[in-house]
């Protein structure tokens, strides 16, 4: 259950920290060692990207990481094997992050079955409008996989409430217009008010991602949201490194960012 990660963080009066990694970048072994290290570094839940060549919701950092992983021959079965290993190593729960076409070609049923058998907790698919998710949600839930759904700054409140109603695990609140990617601006006023409005209409955990890069960003978001998702900046952190060197760069940064989730969160 994804919700447990949020409950556990909430008991410590902090937001859940959710790092994103691209499976197979810089290589599968390194991703495995990163997954194994992230729990101790403070991750409550991990988003694991399945590399895809045409990622419409991702900016240059994650798109390039996906290209590198594909160039090394990373396949869906490799990603699922990583999930299995990380669960056996006692890593935090893993939510797969994939585009819809790989799931369709792999076969939705097969993808659900094999992801579940590998021990994945859920699946996020950012390029399916909520109206198109019914069948996916049903097939996933039959296998015990939860499907968090995304809400964007351009999503009207009533639609966001509808999305939250059927989202499983958590609601992924996108902090800004556009795609994933580190940012220096870090303006979270708008997403704060969106989270606050949505808060009155749903009990599901609300996690904020896109453009979250610094401890200051994490601290600010942790003051109003239930979870903080960080991706591109972690990939930037190990750029050009390999093996233990890359793992250390990521786990050091995760440790520093996760520590910033201890924010004075309004109790609910």
């Amino acid at each position: 259950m994804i919700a447990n990660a949020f409950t556990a963080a909430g008991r410590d009066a902090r937001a859940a920290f959710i790092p994103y990694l691209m499976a197979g970048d810089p290589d599968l072994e390194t991703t495995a060692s990163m997954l194994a290290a992230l729990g101790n570094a403070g991750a409550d839940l991990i988003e694991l990207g399945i590399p895809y060549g045409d990622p419409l919701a991702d900016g240059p950092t994650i798109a390039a990481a996906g290209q590198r992983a594909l160039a090394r021959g990373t396949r869906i079965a490799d990603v699922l094997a990583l999930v299995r290993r990380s669960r056996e190593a006692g890593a935090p729960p893993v939510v797969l992050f994939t585009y819809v076409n790989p799931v369709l070609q792999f076969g939705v049923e097969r993808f659900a079955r094999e992801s579940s058998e590998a021990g994945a907790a859920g699946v996020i698919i950012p390029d399916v409008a909520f109206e198109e998710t019914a069948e996916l949600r049903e097939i996933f839930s039959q296998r015990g996989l939860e499907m968090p759904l995304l809400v964007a700054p351009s999503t009207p409140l009533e639609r966001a409430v509808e999305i939250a109603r059927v989202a499983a695990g958590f609601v992924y609140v996108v902090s800004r217009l556009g795609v994933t990617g580190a940012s220096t601006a870090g303006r979270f006023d708008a997403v704060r008010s969106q989270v606050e409005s949505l808060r009155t209409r749903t009990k599901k955990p609300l996690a904020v991602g896109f453009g979250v890069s610094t401890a200051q960003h994490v601290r600010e978001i942790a003051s109003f949201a239930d979870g903080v998702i960080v991706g591109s900046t972690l990939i930037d952190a190990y750029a050009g490194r390999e093996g233990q060197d890359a793992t250390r760069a990521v786990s050091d940064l995760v440790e520093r960012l996760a520590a910033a989730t201890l924010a004075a969160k309004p109790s609910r």
Partner: protein
Amino acid sequence: MQPNASGYFGDFGGRFVPEVLVAALAELEREIEIAFADRGFWEEYHATLRDFVGRPSPLYRTERYLAGISGVPLLLKREDVNHTGAHKINNTVGQALLARRMGKKRLIAETGAGQHGVATATVGAKFGFPVDVYMGAIDVQRQALNVFIMQLLGAQVHSVSGGTQTLKDATNEAFRVWSERVEDTFYVIGSVVGAHPYPYMVREFQKVIGVEARAQCLERYGRLPTDVVACVGGGSNAMGIFSGFVDDGDVALWGVEAGGAGVETGKTAASLGAGSVGVLHGSRSYLLQDGEGQVRETHSISAGLDYPGVGPEHAFLKESGRAKYVSVTDAQALDAFYAFARTEGIIPALESAHALAYARDLAARRGADDVILVCLSGRGDKDIAQLRDR
């Protein structure tokens, strides 16, 4: 045919985009519903096509191209004589008028060979919109003249260096930029692809080809053609001419894809002929992909057909059997290109040469009682440098 309420033609279409774009697609869908019911909108569209584009485009009967092959009359719908040299402008005029109605501040577009980029830059200049065009880095190099033309018209051309550095990645980039600037920006998609309502909207703006051709054919020859032939990349000129005849059950519709080196070689762009069903650029249709859903690299001598996907309505017409899809290799298209130039005094676009190549095959099975109509979707000036350098 109207797509259903969820934007599907049969099993194809839909809305496979990040949530950030859904509100903009819904806004566009609402605006289209109002604009398409507004006679004033269509009056301005048709007046612009008449006075700015030069429509109606002629229907021309060839005299020598089929000599020695068949006595079948071959008619050409002359989209090559449109302003900017292809059918693309029919669509960009329509989308620019919509953008103005919606109060959008700028236009963005993807382009492969540059024809759609030029057509968008042209309407941007005419209607006073800043225009940003996204183009793969490889295409920027091999279509330098069109890059210059776009810049001359005031557009900014952005070279896209991700992925395969061609049209597919230019489209990815345009989608990404649109999601950042979705509030004030209108994304002018160049073919009958993308998330609902784009495939439907673009077809409605290209339908003028088929409506005119049907009326011209009836008026001039007192009959409908036996066969209508058009090249298919994304498929907008084909959807445009097909939609004039789709309800005429006796008229055969032929979509000609780019076979490249041959569909069996894998070096091809024939999405319907060699692909399978999947999702690309916002809709469910046929595409060239591997077993893990990664989009395959494509090949065609014609940049305008060198695209791994195809519009969802074509997928529907294929499945329903209403249209037939065939392919023509690079070599066959080139052969037709040269033969056509020398026998008719018209240099066709390499894209259109695919339709002309298939028309020649078809002609061998047709006689003087039949009529073949080909959509000559564009002129070949843009291809001359490429052919000279071969």
